[in-house]
Structures are given as C-alpha cells and as structure tokens.
C-alpha cells in the first residue's frame, strides 16, 4: 500500500500527473491511496497523518509548498514509513526525513527559456512576462532563473510583468491589456510565460490584436502540454520547456528498491526537461498524437 498526496487538480497538467501515477500503480499492482488536497497544505498534512494512521508501506508527496514539512515527516519517520517527494521541493535541513526527491528544477527551466530567447534575439529584446500565481514556488523559481540570465544581457529587459495566475483565461485578458498599454504591441519582442496555459491564452490575444504570435512576438513558455504542439506546428509558439508529468514510475522504482533494502539514494533526482522548438517538435508531436 502506498499513500499519494497530490496538490489538487488545478490544471490539466496536474490531472495528467495524477492519472499517470494511478495508472502506474495499477500496472505494478500497488494498492494506491490517493488524496487530493485541493491546493491546501493543511489538507495535505492531514492526509499524510491519516496515511500514517492507516499504516501504509510508503508515502509519496507532491507538496503544495516547500516549507512546513518537518513535523509530519518526523512523524512518518517515527512510524518507519519511507517518504518520497515528487514535483516541488521540500525545505528541510535534515535530509534523512525523506528518501529522495524527484523533481524538475524551476530555476533551471527559467534559465533554459531565457537562454533560448537570448539566442534567438541576440540578447536584444523587450520582453513581456506573464507570471504564475503570486508566491508559488514555480513562479518564483522560473522568474529567478530567467532574470538571472537576462541580467547578463544589457539590451534585454522586461518591460511589463503581471500575474495571470497560471490560467488560460487570465493569460488572454492580461495580454490584451498589456498590448493596449504598449501601443498595440508593435514594440514587444517576446512573451515569456511561466506556463503554457497562460501562453495559449496570450496567443489568442495577440492574434486578436492583429499581430502574429511567433513572428511579431516570440512566445516562450514552460510545460510542453499537449495543446502546445498544434500551436508549435502553426508557428505560433517558438519554444516550450518540457516538464514531464510522468513522475509516478521513478517514484515507485525508488520505493520498491527501498523496501528491498537499498538505502543510498541521491537526494534530488532532477527531472530534466527537454526544450521543444520549431526545429525539434515534430517527433514528439507524432508520439503524443498517437496516444
């Protein structure tokens, strides 16, 4: 029996993630206890406690936020239940509190996006940024990584930055206003969006303003969700950094070998995301279409 505490179902990406973990568990014959925290850390802590009370064999946590895990992880340790962290990080000094962490590196995603953009524009670009939810670790990490890189390019600057809360509808609404504020958007060189959903919304706004996304305004974002590939194919998106939702397999691998007695795991198994651009998206598009 494995308990899995998921953040919630706030996006399509998240749902795919949950489903893939469930499918993986079924494939391996694991009895999975799934718990949805509805984006609340307190619910997640409650769920982990109830897993401990149920006496599960292992716990997988996809944390809502990084902080605040020490007490409940200590409780799990006292009950000798191994914990694997997936997706976002947890900030505990004592590395023994969890077995390992299987997660992407948000900062690095931001860096990759910036590097690609700087490469494509020779470091000269007026950028519009669509931020994720204020305070979320993905938004903070991606912003940090991106800014770090463009800080080295004096000609590149972010001219407008606003949150669109990771959603498509807000992405469209915010982009629409920003374009108006920037005199129709002719001077904007690129859009940097913290996730694909916002980018997809923003693309529509760009089109409705009479500009061509991907040409008049370059579009770069993170996630590589399925809907991005048709947009890549249409040339409306220039680059997206993959963030694979299939973290169930590696997590169960770790748990199985832990229960077999293995102990020396790397503390952070980075899920390295590929970058899809106009040059290399086709192969992946075919794969996804066939699913």
């Amino acid at each position, binding site marked *: 029996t494995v308990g899995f505490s998921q953040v919630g179902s706030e996006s399509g990406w998240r749902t795919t993630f949950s489903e893939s973990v469930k499918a993986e568990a079924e494939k391996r014959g694991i009895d999975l206890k799934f718990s949805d925290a509805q984006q*609340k850390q*307190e619910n997640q802590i409650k769920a982990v406690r109830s897993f401990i009370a*149920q006496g599960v064999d292992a716990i997988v946590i996809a944390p809502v936020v990084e902080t605040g895990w020490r007490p409940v992880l200590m409780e799990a340790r006292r009950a000798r239940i191994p914990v694997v962290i997936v997706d976002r990080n947890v900030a505990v000094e004592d590395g023994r509190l969890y077995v390992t962490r299987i997660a992407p590196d948000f900062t690095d995603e931001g860096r990759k996006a910036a590097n690609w953009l700087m490469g494509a524009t020779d470091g000269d670009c007026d950028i519009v940024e669509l931020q994720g939810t204020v305070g979320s670790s993905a938004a903070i990490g991606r912003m940090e990584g991106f800014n770090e890189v463009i800080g080295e390019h004096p000609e590149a600057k972010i001219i407008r930055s606003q949150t669109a809360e990771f959603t498509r509808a807000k992405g469209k609404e915010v982009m629409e206003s920003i374009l108006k504020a920037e005199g129709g958007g002719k001077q904007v060189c690129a859009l940097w969006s913290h996730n694909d959903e916002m980018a997809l919304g923003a693309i529509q706004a760009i089109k409705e303003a009479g500009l061509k996304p991907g040409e008049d305004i370059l579009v770069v974002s993170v996630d590589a969700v399925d809907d991005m590939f048709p947009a890549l194919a249409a040339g409306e998106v220039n680059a997206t950094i993959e963030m694979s939702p299939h973290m169930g397999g590696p997590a169960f691998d770790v748990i199985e070998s832990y229960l077999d007695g293995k102990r020396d795991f790397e503390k952070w198994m980075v899920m390295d995301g590929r970058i899809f651009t106009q040059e290399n998206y086709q192969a992946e598009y075919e794969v996804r279409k066939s699913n």
Partner: protein
Amino acid sequence: MLHKKFLPLYVTSLLFALLFLAGSIQFENFGTLRVFMNLFTDNAFLIIVAIGMTFVILSGGIDLSVGSTIALSGVIIGVLLEAGWHPLPAFAVVLVLGTLFGAVMGAIIHYYQLQPFIVTLAGMFFARGLSSVISEESIPIMHEFYDDVAMFGFELPGGAWLGSSTIIALTVLVLAVMLANFTRFGGRVYGLGGDTHSAALMGVPIARTTIAVYALSSFLAALAGIVFSFYTFSGYSLAAVGVELDAIAAVVIGGTLLTGGYGYVVGTLFGVLIMGVVQTYISFDGTLSSWWTKIVIGLLLFIFIAMQRFLVRR
C-alpha cells in the same frame, strides 16, 4: 438535562458519532484513539478560527478575513524570527496587530453602517495582499522554542497524541463557552444577532459590542495563525486560502444560524470535527479522484444539513 433548545447540538454530535462509527466499521485502523486525536491536532487552528467566527455569526455578521489573517500572522512571525526575534514577543505583536485589525473592521462596519460581508472581504484582500508584499516566498521557521512547543504533549494509548495545539484549542473552547453563555458580553452578542435595533433600544452598547466581536474574531484568527505556524513551521502568504469558508461551514453545520442570534460554541466544535471526519474518511478510502472528492464533500455536506433540518424541525 434534555432541553429542546439544545436539540441542534444533540443532532450534530449524534451525526458526528454516527459518521465516526461508520468509518470504524468500514476501515481498519479508523476507529482508534489515534485517528480521533488527529482530528483535534489537524484541525486545532480551524477550531480556533471557527470559534471566533461563531461569535461574529451569532452577532449577525460574518468575517471573511480570517483565512488571510492566519496567513498574515504566519508571515509576520516568519519575518520577525528571521530578524532574530524570540517567538514569544513575536506572538505578542501578532496578537495585538490581529486584534487591532479586527477592531478597525468592526469600527468601519459600525460607524459607517457598511455590510460586514464586504468590509471583511476587503479585509481579506488587505491581509493577503499585505502578506504577499511582506514576503512572496514561504518563510521557513526554525527556532528551538518551536521544536520544544511542538514536541510538548502527552502520549495516549494506541500511539495517540495530545499535543500543545490541541490543548490550546480546547482551552479556547472552554473560555469561549464561558464568554458566550456566562458573561454579559455573550448576552449582548446574542442580542445583537437577534435584532440590532431592539438591542440598541434595550441599552446594549452596539458600537462597543460590534467592535469587540470583530476584534475577538481577528484575535482568534491571529492565534490560529500561531497554531498554524506550529503545524507547518512556516509563514506563507498563500497559506489557509479558503479557511473562512471552512470556518463558516463548520459554524453552520454546528447548528448556528447565519442570520444571527441562535447557536452554540460547542456546536462549532462538532462542526469542525464532522468536516474533519469527512476528510479522514475520504483519505482512508483513497480511491476518489480529485473531482469525486469535491462531489462527495458536497454530497456529505448536503446530507448533514438535510438531516439536521429534518431532525430539528419535527
């Protein structure tokens, strides 16, 4: 004493017992002292805010700002500890600020005759906005004092644990029952909820009572913020989103009328516990997808309220 006016209370506690029983029959390890005590440990902060909310609702108002106040308290504590403060003075600061915040909302509501729903909604935006301005990132809390307090508690049979937050919540509960039903202030709060105009004509100091009620609610929300910081060892501007709705739901499930004037603080405790059991039940089950979780919570909420209605009406 089986009195008719306590009927909603009996019904609520009975429903809680039934649900707990149902869980115990269905799942192994459910009907244990440990799970029961976890209900308190996990919901201590909710019990505390819901008690504050009970007073507000009894007085005929509503307080939507409590969730954000929890977050703001956590963030302030986090920042102060980072700056090298000892937790105790930090707590004092948070409690005082919280009380003031509530008093200001109460004063605006009373003196400008504005609607509590909207004033506290603005309060909710304000507190959450202020916490994200203070710190967007979640601030981890590391302090020996926190470890000590978090460790403090009593081991009960079966791996159950009576921790400091449970003790705080239960103390607040006892004090709140006394305040609501054995002091003049309590009578005034009920009176205000019954009919503000009549209460004024009967000599109830409306201004003072209204301000005090919101101050109390925010004070308890700040206290809940402290308890929450022990629960998560962090201060985060996005913490406790939507807790105000949980608290309102708990108060109402506990048999208090939203229109004010009727209900009991103890009912609120059962309201929180019922919601806690529902969650525990769902996570023991462990097969519900995200959406079924929401649907089932909604259904259970409906069943409770319908049964309550049915049983109390007769």
